[in-house]
Every structure is written in C-alpha cells, then in structure tokens.
C-alpha cells in the first residue's frame, strides 16, 4: 500500500503547540507511508488540491490527514480523495487539534502525541478497504411533530415545496405558545392576527394532513423510510361531523376544571373549543371533568348537538404513516416558578406568570383584555415585573439565558401603560439582553416613553402588606435595598424543555442535552440537523427561541427536508455490518441484540442457518460485532482488525515491540 500523510498547521491552531514538520518527518518511517508533508490549511482549496495532486503524482492509494476532529472535516477530505480517484473510505483522520494542540500545554509531549495519533491512523488505514454505498428509494412524505409557529412554518414550507405533510399536535388546536400571546415584540402587532392566517393555511392546504390531540407513539425505520405510529387520542366528538358551532360548549354544565389555554386563570367547560381561532375548530371533551365520562350521567352536549357528533364511546386510535423525513418542533414549556420559595410558592394570588399576564392582556382572555388582578379583580396600578425567573440561575439548574424574557417584559410594561394609563411598571432585571433588529430600541422605549422603572437587581422576597404585595430586592446600581409596593407581580418565567421531550427523543434517537433540549448536529454549521439522519429540529425544542428565530428555523428545517427528498435515491452509509458466512455458526446472538432488526436469519445452500445484514436498515453501531464470539459479523470500517491495529499501534505486543 502507498500512503500519503498530511499534517495540517491549521494556521497556529495546531502549529502553535505541535511541531508539525517533525510529525510529518516521523510519519515517513511508518509502514507503507511513502509521502508525508505538513500543510498550512489542509481543508482550504489549495490544501485539498495539494492532497489530490499528491495522490496522483505519488500514486497513493490511501491518505491520512492529521488536523481537526473528523466530526468537522472528515466528509470534506473524503470528497477530496474521491476527486483524486480513490475510494472515500481509503482515508483516515488524526485529530491533533481538539485532542492535542488545544488541550495540551507542552509542545514536545503534544508533538509526540500527534505522531502517535498519526501512526494509529496509518495502521488503521492499512486495514481499510474500499466501500461502496447502496442506493435506496425514499418516501415522499414529511412528518412534522408540533404545531407551534415553528412546526406550522416547517409544514407550510414543505407542503409548498411539493411534499406531503403530516402535522401532529398534542393539544386540541395548533398554534402553540404563540396563540396565547396578546401582542408580539418589537412591533406590538397582534399575535393572533399574524399567526391566524398561517393556521388557516394549514387547515386548507391540500398537501397537509393534520392530526391534533395526537402524539407520536413509536418510530421505526431510517432516513427516507420511517414508519411512524401516531396515537390519536379520543376526543369523544366525531370531528368528521362537528361543525364547531359551539352550542355544546355553551350548554355544558360542568365548568369546574381549570382552562389550560388561559393558563388556569379561569375554568373551562368540559366540552370546549379552546379559543375562537382554533384550528381545527372542533369541540373536544375533557374526560377528566366530563360528568358523562366520570359519573355516567349528563349528556347535555349530545342532546344539543345539531349534527349528533358526540360519541362517548370513542377510543384512542393508532394511525401508521410512512414518511421520508421528520421535523421535530415540540417547543418549550415554562419554568415552574414554585421552585423559588421567596416568591411565595403560590400563597399570594397576585403573583402570576408572564404567560398568565399575557392572557389578562388579551382581548380573548378571561377578562376580555381588561387587566384585573386575580385576588380581588381590581385594576392594578403598580405592576412589578421580575425577570430571570428560572433563567441564568444555577441553583435551580437553569444556568442558561432564556433569551426572550427581557423583550416580552418590555412589551408587557408597554402594554400595561396602554391598558392602564395611570399605572407604573417596575422591572427587576439582571442585565438587559436585547440583541436583534429593533430590539434594544424597543426596551429603551419601554423605559423612556412608557416610564417603566428598571431596577437592576434580584428580588429577595415578596410579602403581603394590606392589599398590596411588597417586593423587596436589591438595587445594585444604587447599592441599596428597595421595597416596591405592588398590586400585581408578574414573573418573567424562563423556558425549559417541553414535557415529554426526553421520551420523544428516545423514540427518535435524538439526544437531549442536560436540560432536555434536543442536540443539533453542529452548533454552528448544522443547527437544524440532528445526529440521526432524516430527523430535523425547528424552534424552541432545540433551545429557547423567540418567534422570528423559530420561524426561521422552521423554514430552515423545511429546506433541509426538501433537499433530502428532492433526490430520487438516497445512498446508505456503507459502514454497516457484514457477515462472513464461512465463519457464522448461525447461533443468532446478533439477531437477538440488534436494536434495529437489521439482521435476519437465512439458510445457506446446505440448509445451515446464517445471519444476514439488511444494509439499508443497519445503522452501523457494531453491537452485533461484539456479540459474535467468532467475529463472523464485522462492522465495516470499524472491524476488529482495524480497531486492534489501533490498539497495537499504541501498545504493541511483544512480537511487534522491536519494530522500527
């Protein structure tokens, strides 16, 4: 074999703490290495051209590049060696940046380590063999999970791009958090006026199938060919007949259950349409509070329904859909502020969340848009906003900034003044985070035009005095303690991962981060991809986001889906397991352990049982290879011999010890 080695300086990123020419010189002594050089930027165009030129001139049949992590540029270099006429798998990378130059302080140790990593790569490459991808067809249909603004955007863009879309939403209506908002920053335009038309488009688009009150039950298959089972929960209303007239909602006598759409500020009837613009505009029964379903008597809705669509016997239904790609847009949930004992843990009725305040401001909310505080219905004059409730606080395991609270608090301060001209708002903040177009100007307006008093400091406690709440906090700019008498306290609660996100992640094989948000493939370069091919992220399920960012990501995910499904055929990763039938004794252990059902039992021509891998189903994890005692099933590109070659390069057994 003729191997060429290229040691990248990465400017000074590597060369600063690794003696690259010396690594290159050492590499020449390794077996089969016929060419070795150092290069300033291997990934640059001249860098890649130099590799291609060397392959041709030196007649190389394998290339090692020592540079950054293969998670960054393995694909880049594979394409380069392919352009040079080699098989893309006749390439290995040594990570001497992230794993050497950036973490080690001592240059000679770093240089030695880099040389050994190169040697490992050479030894592995010597055992590589050309691999060719298999091609397979894809299902031209997209599943979007979550009908918030990000999911809506992704669904519409995919459908407009010509793909069939199945949109699954857990709640009764799409719209998500945005549907609950009164106005949006920094334009102060009406949230439902912006969102409403998009929701209607979803309902009317011929290529979109909408399943609300539904959740993803299980996901099987792989990129291009997923099989998804959706559980359509019983609504006890036949939606094919329901016209959304609302007669049942009016007549329902059971109204003691809190209304989640209105953030539990008021109660909702047991059969309900959550809000006027709901899509689909269909009624559904809450089985927890419905008198008929809990006590077996009532049926008022069934009596008044003009189209007789009430069905108390309805059961959950499982629907299976085949899709080629999946967009996850499951959004976020609000931090449970009861974890902060200093805010009263719910003992004071007039301490509410920002989302509850949003409902109080909304004309379609429980107070018809008149701000009335929950305890006595009085209009508040002094409103205190407390920011960073569940953001930037390690003590509650929420060290991250939720990003949008500064902005919505400014918006709510402005709206407070609009609703109650003689009111005064106070905002306790840590820092104002308002990067974004017209964002900082907006917060300045809240302070300067609307007279909101911003106090830089945390709130230590809230306690009642008379019919007021005293908010005590620090004013760190004045260096003093302040106490503000408030009629209403609004907690700017931060975002946290949506409930059930982790469980959904398990089904989709998308890992959540330590806070439960889904991890993207690369924080900068692959923000909507996941490590599972064919599954994309949109919106706040990846991390807290405001509306423009969520919409942007929805479109971005749709672009990725359209790109993926525009190909007639997809190529499977050839680094899959392969059975050597001559060694296989047909014990079936690999079949038993494969998580993907990618191995089946076949019979050879003598009728002996043998394992066989289904290439397109195999994901290349290698569990089977370890399970097989004979080593008869080997994961291509990570065979026992390839990994042992790396082990032996690092720790040579006695037989090899005298080499060099």
């Amino acid at each position: 074999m003729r191997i060429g080695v290229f040691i990248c300086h990465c400017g000074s990123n590597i060369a600063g703490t690794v003696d690259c020419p010396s690594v290159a010189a050492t590499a020449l002594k390794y077996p089969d290495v016929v060419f070795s050089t150092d290069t300033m930027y291997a990934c640059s165009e001249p860098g890649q051209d130099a590799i291609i030129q060397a392959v041709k001139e030196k007649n190389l049949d394998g290339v090692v590049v020592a540079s950054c992590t293969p998670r960054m540029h393995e694909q880049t270099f594979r394409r380069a060696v392919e352009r040079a006429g080699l098989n893309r798998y006749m390439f290995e990378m040594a990570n001497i940046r992230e794993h050497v130059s950036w973490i080690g302080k001592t240059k000679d140790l770093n240089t030695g380590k880099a040389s050994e990593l190169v040697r490992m790569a050479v030894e592995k490459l010597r055992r590589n063999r050309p691999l060719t991808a298999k091609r397979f067809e894809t299902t031209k249909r997209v599943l979007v999970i979550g009908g918030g603004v990000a999911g809506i955007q992704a669904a519409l863009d995919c459908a407009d791009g010509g793909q069939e879309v199945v949109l699954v939403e857990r709640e009764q209506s799409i719209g998500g958090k945005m549907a609950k908002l009164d106005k949006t920053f920094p334009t102060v335009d009406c949230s439902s006026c912006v969102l409403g038309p998009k929701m209607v488009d979803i309902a009317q688009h011929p290529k979109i199938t909408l399943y609300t009150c539904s959740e993803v039950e299980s996901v099987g298959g792989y990129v291009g060919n997923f099989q998804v089972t959706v559980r359509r929960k019983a609504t006890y209303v036949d939606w094919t007949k329901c016209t959304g007239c609302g007669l049942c909602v009016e007549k329902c006598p059971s109204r003691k259950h809190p209304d989640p759409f209105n953030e539990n500020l008021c109660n909702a009837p047991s059969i309900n349409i959550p809000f006027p613009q709901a899509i689909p505009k269909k009624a559904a029964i809450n089985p927890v509070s419905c008198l008929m379903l809990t006590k077996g008597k009532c049926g008022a809705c069934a009596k008044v329904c003009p189209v007789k669509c009430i069905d108390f016997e309805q059961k959950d239904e499982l629907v299976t859909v085949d899709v080629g790609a999946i967009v996850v847009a499951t959004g976020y949930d609000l931090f449970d502020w009861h974890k902060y004992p200093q805010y009263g843990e719910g003992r004071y009725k007039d301490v509410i969340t920002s989302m509850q305040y949003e409902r109080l401001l909304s004309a379609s909310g429980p107070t018809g848009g008149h701000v009335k505080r929950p305890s006595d219905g009085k209009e508040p004059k002094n409103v205190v906003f407390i920011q960073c409730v569940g953001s930037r606080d390690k003590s509650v395991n929420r060290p991250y900034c939720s990003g949008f609270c500064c902005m919505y608090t400014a918006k709510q301060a402005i709206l407070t003044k609009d609703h109650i001209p003689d009111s005064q708002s106070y905002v306790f903040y840590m820092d104002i985070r308002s990067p974004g177009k017209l964002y900082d100007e907006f917060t300045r307006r809240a302070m300067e035009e609307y007279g909101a008093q911003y106090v830089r400091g945390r709130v230590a406690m809230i306690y009642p005095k008379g019919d007021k709440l005293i908010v005590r906090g620090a004013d760190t700019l004045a260096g003093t303690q302040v106490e503000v008498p408030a009629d209403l306290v609004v907690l700017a609660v931060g975002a946290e991962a949506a409930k059930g996100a982790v469980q959904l992640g398990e089904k989709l094989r998308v890992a959540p981060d330590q806070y439960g948000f889904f991890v993207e493939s690369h924080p900068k370069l692959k923000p909507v991809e996941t490590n599972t091919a064919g599954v994309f992220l949109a919106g706040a399920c990846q991390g807290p986001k405001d509306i423009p960012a969520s919409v942007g990501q929805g479109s971005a995910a749709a672009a990725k889906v359209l790109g993926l499904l525009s190909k007639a055929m997809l190529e499977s990763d050839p680094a899959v397991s392969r059975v050597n039938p001559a060694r296989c004794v047909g014990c079936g252990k690999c079949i038993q352990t494969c998580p993907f059902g990618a191995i089946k039992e076949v019979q050879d021509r003598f009728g002996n049982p043998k394992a066989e891998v289904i290439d397109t189903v195999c994901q290349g994890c290698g569990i089977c290879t370890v399970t097989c005692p004979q080593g008869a099933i080997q994961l291509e590109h990570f065979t026992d011999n390839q990994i042992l070659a790396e082990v032996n390069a690092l720790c040579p057994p006695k037989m090899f010890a005298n080499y060099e």
Partner: protein
Amino acid sequence: MSQLDDLKTAIKSRLGELECVIGWEQGYDPLHATPLFIRSEADLDRLIIGPLAVHNLATYLTGYKGKKVGVVVKGCDSKSVVQLLNEKLINRDDVVIFGLCCDGVVSQRKIRAALPADPGFVESVEIGGDGMTVTVAGQAATLKFADVQADKCRICTTPDAIVSDVLVGTAHTPAPAASLACQDEFEAKSDAEKLEFWQETMSRCIRCYACRNACPMCVCRDYCIATSRDPLWLSQDNTPAENMMFQMVHVSHLAGRCTECGECERACPVDIPLMLLRRFMNKQVKDVFEHQAGAALEQTPPLLTFKVEEERINERGW
C-alpha cells in the same frame, strides 16, 4: 434393579428413534472412562456410570445439530444442556436426556497425586462403600472418595439432572450453595501475588486448546477467534501475556454462560487451574444479574439483554 440397569432399559426403549445415545465406557484402563456412542443394543453392554464417568457429554450435542440424539447427563452436565437449550444452540425436540442422580465423580488428578507413584497402567479398580481400591503393578491402594472427589462435587447443588426425559437413580436433597476454600484463598491474594501466579501458570500453557475443545459452551469450533487471522486477536507468540489473553477471550465469551462443569480444567494437560477464573466470573454475573447459567430453562444470557435501569450496577458518577 441397579441404576445402571434402569438406564440401560431406558436407553433401549428409545434407541430406535435416535442417531445414537452418548454415554461412557471403560477407557484404556479400568481407572479411565471414555465417551461411548451407543448406536446398537450391543453397544449398551459397555455402558458404565459412576464416579469414573467424569466427562460432560453435553459437549458433543452441538455437533449433532439437526439430528436426534440421546445423552446421559449428571446433574452438573444437565446445566450445560439447559444453557445450550436457552441459547437455542440445540433443539429440545432433537435431544433425549437420560438424567442421572449422581453421587459425585473423581478427580483423576487427585487420584494420581494420592497414589504412591505415577500409576501408568492401572490393573483394576474396585468401587465400593465410601472409597475405591486401585491396583497398580500388583499393589492395591485404598482411596477415600472424599479425598479424591472433584472440586465441583464438593460444592455441588444440583446432583440430579435438572432437565431430563428419563431420570434414573435415587433423588438427592441438594446441599446449600458453598464456596471452595481454595477459591476464597486465591481471591484474597493481592494483585501482585495473583499476577505472579498467572505469569507462572500461563508460562506452562502450550496453547493446545484442550480447555476450549472440552467446553460444552464453546460452539464456535473451527471458527474460534483464537486461531483466526481475520479477526486477528491472538498472535502465535507463546508468552504468558498471549496465553492469558486466550483465557480472557474464553472467559469473556463464557460470561453468563459458563455452567462450571469444570471440563476445561480437567482437560488441561499442564494443570492450569482455569476454574479460578470461571468461578470468579460466575460470581460476578450472579451478583450483578442474579443469573446462574443453566440453572433454569427460558433464561436469557445476561449479556444478550439489558435493563434500562440496572439496579446493581453502580455507574460511578464521575
């Protein structure tokens, strides 16, 4: 009727439907038994059982895959059969199990040590009571079973076959689980002492693979990775490290599967105490997974499955 007669009767009644029935007969001298493959009623006359019938005949079963055979098993051997069944390496329908209620077998190694000199050819063996009389070169030596019993019999909890089509003999009340003093003593040694011990014993190893070939659970046969180039796990180097590596391969492939029949150790021509490794691994498997290979039907080997929460694995959160 004696246990042997009962067994012969039972085998006779099934022989017609079977490829063969595997039992024991006298070997090259009266002290040593050897496996007997009974294909006709005439062969039955040579069948023996008793303390000299040491071999675990389950080892042969996988070689007959697809054919229906009979096998005579002691309690310990039956665990190997169970494990093979659990791993679907043999079909229950393809094997007729003649189970014995066993009173224990001897260790040839201990007999050799107990006799005054290397016995060479043994003239006769008289078995009776709690011992046996071995005559070599005209000289008779009387040995007590208790002194020459195999290690595994001392701690045996399953003297009677736990799965069988026919069970012959008088059932025993199994003894409670115990541990061997030599095992405990060895485990208590320091790492350095243990390392030195294995260095020495493994330098004796001649890599004959008798331990592997005698093992009823080693079903790879010709495809063992110890003797393969792709994958190339072991070199031909005859060093303690390489020899130990083979034992590590063996134990690793037996984790959760080894029934402690002791055939590997019995087969070793250079007296390497391989069961020290096996018993220790089994102890760990039992401790973590509450699993004993071959103890019951319908068990899944613990390394072929998992639990999302492993109660007994402390994942050392660091």
